[in-house]
């Protein structure tokens, strides 16, 4: 037997879905940029010393 059930929880409007997707993309780009920035800063701060350690 099949029933015509409404989906549980909140159903987003197209506008809400679109803006959420845009926000997620923006957050993803910002986090990716910060990863690159902190990597570059770490390399600059540590410098060649990153390889200078006892084996």
């Amino acid at each position: 037997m099949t029933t015509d059930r409404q989906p549980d929880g909140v159903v987003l409007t197209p506008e809400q879905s679109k803006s959420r997707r845009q926000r997620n993309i923006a957050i993803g780009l910002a986090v990716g940029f910060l990863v690159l920035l902190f990597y570059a800063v770490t390399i600059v701060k540590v410098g060649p010393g990153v390889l200078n350690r006892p084996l």
Partner: protein
Amino acid sequence: MAFIDESRAPGLAAISAASPGDYLALLKPRVMSLVIFTALTGLLFAPRHINPVIGFASLLAIAVGAGAAGALNMWYDADIDAVMRRTRRRPIPTGRVTPREALAFGLTLAIFAVLTLGLVANLLAAALLAFTIFFYVVIYTMWLKRSTPQNIVIGGAAGALPPVVAYAAASGNVSLVALILFAIIFVWTPPHFWALALVRSAEYERAGIPMMPNVKGAGRTRLEILIYSIVLALVGVLPFVCGLASPLYGALSVVLGAVFIGLALNVYRVRSGEGADTCAMRLFGFSILYLFLLFAELLGERLLALAAGS
């Protein structure tokens, strides 16, 4: 625990429809661009050459810190913004971003920016950035803005600090050079905002903000604009007098300072009719150009000097 706050609209889930652009607007991007510009000047005037990656990360942290202060300002001032023509289209008054979202966004970015500057540059710069944000949000926005006509005079310190923060990020200390850059922006702020306040005094009155024209009257405001303009013209020449800039900067600052005083004199003389508003808006527009040209000349000269290896 409820994952969705329904307190504001019972039965309707409060799902945000804010775009990334709305969050960007919370950061006051035009103010941020001025902060980056003046901070870059402070950064390059530091005696120690900073690594470009560290310099870029420091500038970014300062800009984000300034943006966070802007977001916290919009959170606190949403009631005022809603009744003023210039600000009523901001994300909170239009309902695109809730005050709680703006508060969380501003606090997160403020803490993140200060920590980043501390890790990337040094603790002094991070402490100065934290002080700048605190001063703008708590001292200016929450206290002075609604309580005294000297609000933008004292609050102007927050807008003048970015070059000092950047100088500290590069050098680890604060010197006369940084304080001169601070002084130029600090003295520039009152005539800049009061020129606008003269034209928009009715709006400020309606919003209940005690700006100088509403409290002390337009005549007193015009006199103070003139006095600050004269002081600004003198302070603007200081980089040349102290040997930080070339005679070309000296000549430019004298000419621009004279024009600034001339426009302030017009504001002082023309007191009624459309001409009065025109004079005030002319001074307001020129004040932006004045600050931009002075710092552009300083920045250009410093870049040339660095390129020449001095």
